[in-house]
């Protein structure tokens, strides 16, 4: 069992956008997808997913519609909007730059004085 890591504040949005970018999903599906793509390494407080979803919808990054799921239940599906797709790219770039910067910072050796 991999070790669990608490996700950093502000990164939940990024994870949601990423998860949804792979295809329309409903709420619980998003949770499963995040667990799956992070190989279960990231632990999300499940309820916190929803305020984030509503916020993203309101910001116009996601759009939601009600439909029938495979087990024939009325379910709310989320998918990326164009703005969401763009935002995802920016966030990915930003994140990667940050990770690279942090990583290089952590690799630095103490200087001889």
């Amino acid at each position, binding site marked *: 069992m991999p070790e669990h890591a608490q996700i950093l504040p502000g990164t939940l949005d990024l994870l949601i956008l990423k998860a949804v970018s792979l295809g329309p999903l*409903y*709420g*619980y599906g998003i*949770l499963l997808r995040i667990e799956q793509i992070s190989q279960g390494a990231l632990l999300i*407080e*499940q*309820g*916190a*997913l*929803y*305020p*984030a979803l*509503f*916020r993203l*919808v*309101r910001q116009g990054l996601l759009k939601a519609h*009600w439909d029938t799921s495979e087990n024939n*239940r*009325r*379910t*709310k599906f989320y998918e990326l909007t164009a703005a969401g797709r763009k935002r995802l790219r920016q966030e990915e770039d930003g994140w990667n730059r940050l990770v690279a910067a942090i990583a290089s910072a952590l690799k630095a050796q103490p200087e001889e004085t």
Partner: protein
Amino acid sequence: MRVFASLRSVLSALFHRSLVENEVEEELRAHIQDRANDLERSGVPRAEAKRRARLEFGGYQKFKEECREAQGTHFLETLIQDLRFGLRMLRKSPGFTAVAILTLALAIGANTAIFSIVYGVLLAPLPYRDASKLVVLNETTPRVGNVSVSYPNFLDWRAQNRSFSQMAYVAQMGFNLAGAGVSQPENIAGDSVSPNFLSMMGVRPVLGRDFEPAEGESGTQRVLLLSYQLWQSHFGADRNVIGRSITLDGNDFVIIGVLPADFRPLDRTDVMLPIGVWATNNRSATERGERGDSTVVGRLAPGAALTQAHAEMEGITAGLAKEYPAANDQFGVRLRPIRDAFVGNLQTEILVLFAAVMFVLLIASANVANLFLIRGAARSKEIALRIAVGASRWRIIRQLLTESFVLAFLGGVLGLGFAFAGIRLMTRLIPQETLGGASIGLNGAVLLFTAGVVVLAAVVFGMAPAAHSAKWDVQAELKEGGRTAGVGAAQNRLRGMLAVAEISLALVLLAGAGLMLKSLYRLINVNPGFQPDRVLTMEMYLSSQRYSQDPAVLNFWRQVLDGVRSLPGVESAALGNHIPLTGDHGRTDITIEGMALPKPGSFPHPDVHTVSPDYIRTLGMVLQRGRTFTDADNATAPPVALVNEKLARQYWPNEDPVGKRFMWGRFDPASKDAHKWVTVVGVVDDTKMYGLANPSRLEVYAPLLQEVNNDMDLVVKSRLDPSALTSEIRSVVAAVDKDQPIFAIATMNKIMSDDVAAPRLTLVLLGLFSALAVMLAAIGIYGVISYSVAQRTHEIGVRMSLGAQPRDVLRMVLGQGGKIALVGIAIGIIAAFGLTRLMSGLLFSVSASDPGTFAAVAGLLVFVALVACYIPARRAMRVDPMVALRYE
């Protein structure tokens, strides 16, 4: 209805809101359910799976709440929040709220009540098809003014004009309704109309048929339509009434139909007859010079305008005047939209009152704005705090405006109550005839107007404080944190300006009321030319077959007079056709002996009254010279007459009119007949025949025994209350002829009072409104001054400790109020000079800029303002310097 529509939208928004709420729950529950299912599938027992799923989800309520917040707040929700907050704030200061709501309710109520009249009389659609195309026509002559239309002239108008697609003649008639099935004989009013009249108006009988073209010719069968009201009251709304007959003036008429309930005739109409019935054996139908009691209504042809029709009709009447000078010399024509015929001269009165209530509304709004500003000052810290913690200024303004609307709405609701009571009172006070049959009430249009007024008021009094709050300096507010917070010089200026505006508006209203008061005072002190006290009058019209011969008529009148005179309490009794102030009078040309013969249209054209000997004495008229009539002035005696002063002065200036002679009609030198000269035996004072405000005309009185008349007013001078005689007089008349109706029973004082009913009501309303305005303005200036005194307590304390006397303080405070009052009065007088001119049509022998009235109302306002300022000034005088200084 708009109110319901908006209510529905609020409800649906709220409903929508809860729907969204449900969807959030649905989504969250689905998640927990899915999780539990997954856990169960991986081998966890069902109950445990459920528990774990809930646990993993976290705080359900917390996340639900966050979802709601994340969605953003609905506009409506903010509104409801604001409303709740507003109501709470209003509840917190009940004094302020009560004063503001009451002020607004009075103003809104007055506006609603007056608007219900504006709407009913001026705006409500008339119950005719395309009523804007309907025009009422009558003839005019410079000697009299507006007169009826001669039937032969009407036939020529109709044949010659191109501007009207249709024209119809309407002759007013009166009938005695008696006979089988009628318990008490009564007089009813009827219109005889051209057969096309109803179809032209776009009116169809609700029962039976319309008139047929053949019924427009004389000699036609006697048929009639019942008015809806007569059908209800006399026939119990029986649908089988068609074909039955009704006895009018002793003749049977077949009922062929019933008019609709909402039919609005130009005059009282109980029955409607085809013009052919009227024309049968009627000289007026063939004599061009006869102008009875009639009008013409026309429908403008498509594309024809009133001005164009007017020009054409003037051409036609000019042609007819040339062609038939004996009948038409100097006769012209007047055209007016049918609406004007209903509104008459009420329009100015109504619009003046409407302007007055608008002023009251403005004053009330200014007053509430002032209250708001004062309270705003007290609340400035609260507001500054809210801005500081992140509320946007727009949000604050919205909050303040919401409070204004809540206040205005509550004022509006209470105002509707006032309006409802006011309308009931007014419709009771105004005679229905005055309103031309308009229906006055709280209908949809009036409610819509009230809603508009509420919004207007809310914006007017809400804007000032709201706009002001946008400028508040948060830093200063919070730093000072003291009692002077938020009350900059700008705000004091604004409040002062509001008080000035209130006073100037109040002055304009007061000036209007003052002018009306002076006018009415002059009007009721006009000498009417008779003594109305203790005089009872009633009309009798001997129309049945049994009175076709003069002796029968005279016999009836003699028996009635003898019977009435013998009643206890009767001082004197007489007959006259007709008494003053009751309508139009018969007129005829006369020729003064020896006068140079004028053109046909310029002969003297006096009203002619046939009267019994005691008429002059019973009415208390003044005989200036000569004698009145006696029973000896009968058919075998030489013809005699009385003239009024105006006629005597005009035709026998500087001569004694007694003994002078004239003849009825125009002198025709070619005529072989012996000319029958009438000798003037006396001169009487002028009487106000056509209203106290209208000038007297030429009057001639002839003895009833010489000029027999079957339509007379009985006038009875009583020793005591004259109306007590009514039933005894009824029995006297019934003893002579049980089928003879008596109508138009009224005391002469009532007739006089009715004559000034319209200006009196205008005065009462204007007086009420201006009293309200003055009261509000006084409260306004009181508020400004007392607030300013409260603010300056410290300063006053300093002054007093430095040696200022209470008198100086008084002078200072009164000076401040006086300045506001004087500026307001100056502006008000200028505005009043411009505005009262619009009501000059309502004023009787008072100039619209009467200096006395203006001075009086200005003085009154100065006095009121000083009293209003004196109360806070006294408080200022009592300031204890020690307390005032310590307070700081």
